[in-house]
């Protein structure tokens, strides 16, 4: 069903690689989506990426369209790395839909684990302050310049400090998965906002 996998070293080859996803039944079994939802998702996916895979550039472009005020490229970069679980540099429809299934229909535990994975930029299993700084800076970049109140230089750092205060239980400067899960589950705000996009589809 899939085209033979081409080594995606050559940029040119990438555009000619055509990838077809596994069958609808399989995807339905693997994810928490219904057939109709998968159909809608695939139509949108195929519209933007006719070749069947999305590379980082396209990903960034798509994401940037939703945030015209600022620069969404850094956050899109981290998102892409989180979606691209196999680190191949391209996201196939299966990866896409698997991640969406977790984000929209997964359990709280799964969602938190996915978010932890997003924050853990170097995928070493721990979040340190630098990684968090990068993430928070990327989020603030999406706001752009024209904000109220005016964005100051150390606003992201303050934000990260607050975050670490909350999350880092044993104050060792890094946040492990367990600390993260525990702290998030204690915070009602976070719990509530995780349910926010339940009915997005």
């Amino acid at each position, binding site marked *: 069903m899939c085209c033979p996998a081409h080594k995606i070293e050559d940029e040119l080859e990438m555009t000619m690689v055509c990838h077809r996803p596994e069958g609808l039944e399989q995807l339905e079994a693997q994810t928490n989506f219904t057939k*109709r939802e998968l159909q*809608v*998702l695939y139509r*949108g*996916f195929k*519209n*933007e990426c006719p070749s069947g895979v999305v590379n980082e550039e396209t990903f960034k472009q*798509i994401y940037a*369209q*939703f*945030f*015209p*005020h600022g620069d969404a490229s850094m*956050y899109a970069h*981290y*998102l892409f790395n*989180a979606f691209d679980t196999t680190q191949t540099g391209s996201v196939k429809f299966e990866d*896409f839909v698997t*991640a*969406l299934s977790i*984000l*929209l229909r997964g359990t709280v535990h799964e*969602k938190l684990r996915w*978010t932890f994975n997003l*924050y853990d930029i170097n995928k070493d299993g721990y979040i340190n302050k630098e990684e968090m700084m990068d*993430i*928070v800076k990327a*989020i*603030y970049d*999406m*706001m*752009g*310049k*024209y*904000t*109220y*109140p*005016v*964005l100051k230089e150390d*606003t992201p750092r*303050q*934000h990260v400090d*607050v*975050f670490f205060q*909350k*999350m880092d239980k044993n104050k060792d400067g890094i946040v492990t998965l367990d600390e*993260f899960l525990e702290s*998030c589950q204690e915070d009602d*705000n*976070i719990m*509530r*906002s*995780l*349910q*926010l*996009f*339940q*009915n*997005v*589809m």
Partner: protein
Amino acid sequence: MAAGVAAWLPFARAAAIGWMPVANCPMPLAPADKNKRQDELIVLNVSGRRFQTWRTTLERYPDTLLGSTEKEFFFNEDTKEYFFDRDPEVFRCVLNFYRTGKLHYPRYECISAYDDELAFYGILPEIIGDCCYEEYKDRKRENAERLMDDNDSENNQESMPSLSFRQTMWRAFENPHTSTLALVFYYVTGFFIAVSVITNVVETVPCGTVPGSKELPCGERYSVAFFCLDTACVMIFTVEYLLRLFAAPSRYRFIRSVMSIIDVVAIMPYYIGLVMTDNEDVSGAFVTLRVFRVFRIFKFSRHSQGLRILGYTLKSCASELGFLLFSLTMAIIIFATVMFYAEKGSSASKFTSIPASFWYTIVTMTTLGYGDMVPKTIAGKIFGSICSLSGVLVIALPVPVIVSNFSRIYHQNQRADKRRAQKKARLARIRVAKTGSSNAYLHSKRNGLLNEALELTGTPEEEHTGKATSLIESQHHHLLHCLEKTTNHEFIDEQMFEQNCMESSMQNYPSTRSPSLSSQSGLTTTCCSRRSKKTTHLPNSNLPATRLRSMQELSTIHIQGSEQPSLTTSRSSLNLKADDGLRPNCKTSQITTAIISIPTPPALTPEGESRPPPASPGPNTNIPSIASNVVKVSAL
């Protein structure tokens, strides 16, 4: 936001999960999808040709005919399809616009028919994609010119009283066909230019001998006659120049134009001659000045379109001509040097210096071969033959290239100018689209996106403020709103930003503009908890009144009872304490809140917390009923 990526909005919203643990404030509620129904196929019957598409595809553009409820007027109950009695060919393009987000203009289509169809479907032609936009604009311009020509020929009989005398004169000068007088003027000037040129030429012809002296040119024999002719011509030219100067819409630009310079150069020698006839020494120079009279011939370019085109093409071909000249010069210098040194030995050689050899080289290379200078030595002859052979190459080769360059460059220039003019417009359009998208969010904040609030209070009202926002748009705005909450900063537009900057620098405002943010106890206890969960239910919108917000530590809440179900609320950067208690039944009142800054913590956090998050709380029962007069609540 392009419609094409609307399908990716669920992904963008899902990705927002990454902000949640970082955010300190609670997120606003998502807009509910009240019209949640399964996506269905719609059949569109356009003059018998059936098109089918998903309903959501059409709903991407809610302010067009197909995207709004206007299409219900065309719904045919019997056949359960939408019937349009319009052109199916153009409809193909229209439907593709919904599908791909790009509107194309088919070249075979008539421009006015296309425009009519677009107007019918409520689509603005400005969104035509870049690939087809130039073609569309060109056709449109041609059409407009055609219409203008038609109008002009209609109006030709009637005089245009609206045009001033000056404007009429300018029009007459530029376009001699507008009136008979202009035509007469045109021919008269043409005649006099010809007369002037001919007299200049004939002046120098030897006219037979006056007895007793040598042969004289006609100019000196009949000097009076020629002088009168010359005077007459110059009079006419001067009058013409002055009239044009008077009639020109922009005198400065007219003076700088090429034609006016030619005019001046044509008549100046005469006046200079008048002034200088007394002085004998300068009369030599005066004679030289007469040469410039030949420039009168260029005045013909006003009468000939072809001359103008040629001049323009030469100008645009200047670089090619320059290159030809340069390579020729190189070759001439090389060969002249060689010939000079080759002929140095020979006696009585005409090649006295290198510049003297230039003449030989040029004559030989252009294969003229006058024969006034010929090499005598063997070496000279050898090099001379090489020179003439290479001359053929050097001259003959570039000339056809240049000639073909003429037409290529001429056409290319025209196209390049067009493209350059359109590029600015294109960039401007892209910029406008981008700011439009970001402004849409700010705009809706200002008007108060009340989908959530109204739904929460269970209002069955369908009509909100202003224009209908599609579900996609409201979801997108909700996403942006979440981002604002994550970072505790708001989006504002450029002017307000600058205003705020100016105000803050002027007033030297301490950083306690948002005291909550800078309080020592950390962010968690400040803005968000104070802001209370209630604000999750209050859509955030910026009122223009936020301009006041910076300086004043006042919170004023105007509550007006009104019939309108629309609500405009403005968000505060700080807590809306009193607002909570006074949030009325949204259907009957209009709240405009101004600034807030509350030093005292409110007493209602527990109330907020007790509310289950996604559930839509009913209207607060302890809200005092709002009279229909303005209640001003001031909290300090």
